[in-house]
């Protein structure tokens, strides 16, 4: 979807602000949001592509004002409701209760097995590489054009990189295809490529700059020279 998350090439967000305090979490709830989301992902309540798409579907004003971990809580809540794991009205009531009573305690529960499981998740991650029988359609140096698609669902082809001519920089393995995987349509693995798009092609400016972006095979059209 052409959501607010797809900010590549936008103007108006001001200068990059650095030199702030570099703590990982500014508030304790951010710390909990980080742990919760990883716990949900690590137990397979939903996958990473669904998680990203949940963020993309936030109201744009909320997206811009809730901060990074606000996004995490938003998608976590949305997906748990959509999967039927928690009830939306119960969640809303509970949210209001915590807003009214900020010292209200969160119940505790221990589960050493889950701790162990999460340690493995963090240690080994989850590869998205899959073996497929097909051969890659493009080789290094191939000229390609990116498709101009505008799906209402999840995609990892950002708006700024659509309908552009580029060159294959690297042929990677076949990876799980997010456009399918975010929508319960299976993994549909496809070859992934690093594609070089010049600043001239992207922005109409001359300059010694290029973007290298990772694109799945079905985002690419062969170009006959």
């Amino acid at each position, binding site marked *: 979807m052409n959501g607010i998350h797809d900010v590549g090439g936008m103007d108006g967000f001001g200068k990059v602000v650095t030199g702030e305090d570099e703590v990982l979490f500014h508030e304790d709830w951010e710390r909990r949001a980080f742990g919760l989301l990883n716990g949900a992902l690590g137990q397979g309540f939903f996958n990473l592509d669904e998680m990203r798409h949940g963020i993309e579907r936030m109201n744009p004003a909320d997206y811009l004002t809730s901060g990074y971990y606000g996004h995490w809580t938003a998608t976590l809540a949305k997906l748990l409701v959509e999967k039927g794991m928690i009830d939306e009205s119960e969640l809303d009531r509970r949210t209001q209760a915590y807003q009214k009573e900020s010292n209200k305690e969160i119940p505790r*529960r221990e589960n050493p097995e889950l701790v162990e499981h999460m340690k493995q998740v963090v240690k080994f991650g989850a590869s998205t590489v899959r073996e497929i029988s097909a051969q890659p359609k493009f080789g290094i140096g191939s000229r390609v054009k990116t498709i101009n698609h505008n799906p209402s669902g999840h995609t990892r082809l*950002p708006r700024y990189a659509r309908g552009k001519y580029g060159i294959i920089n690297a042929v990677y393995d076949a990876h799980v295809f997010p456009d399918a995987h975010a929508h319960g349509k299976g993994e549909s693995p496809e070859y992934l490529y690093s594609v070089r798009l010049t600043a001239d092609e992207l922005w109409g400016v001359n300059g010694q700059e290029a973007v290298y972006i*990772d694109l799945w095979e079905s985002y690419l059209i062969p170009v006959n020279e």
Partner: protein
Amino acid sequence: MSENHNHDHHHHGHHHPSPESYWSARTKAVESLLIEKGLISSDAIESVVQFYEKDLGPMHGKKVVAKAWSDPDFKQKLLADSETVLKDLGYFGMQGEHVRVVENTEDVHNVVCCTLCSCYPWALLGLPPAWYKEPAYRSRIVKEPRSVLEEFGLVLPDKVEIRVWDSSAEIRYLVIPERPAGTEGMTEEELAELVTRDSMIGVVKVQPPARANV
């Protein structure tokens, strides 16, 4: 549209929500419901957090860079097949399953971003800094990288090609910065100390060592 209630947004320069914000309460609400339903445990949440806050330790990325600077054979293998080399060293894990290492030279400067979310090589660099996740960096670095790098204090000659790696898939990128002058004869451990996180994202260069002996 469940977020779209009448809640207050306090937005500051960096959109850090204030203590008892809607999002804080919402997070607590989700946690309490998941705990009650037995779908998560408090200690599991805490152990994940602790791993990134405390256990991950010094950035593995620094050691990789120092080794690449010290050992040309290693560097060559690392650039040719980053993933295998890093796995052999034990540097992998969540958000580091698939890594490609790229090298800065006199002629080419690499810088990493994720315009669509904030993908970042956790396993090598830990969790990303705040600016990496904000729209200002994500929106501008692909369109005006030279200006953005200048704001980080890095002024590159026009002839230097800037390559911006937009992490749109599950490949994570790590930059080997240029080895600074005056580091001849330094050990890998000493070199690793010079390497900064930002230099491995590609927004700054590694500075030469302070010349305490001069």
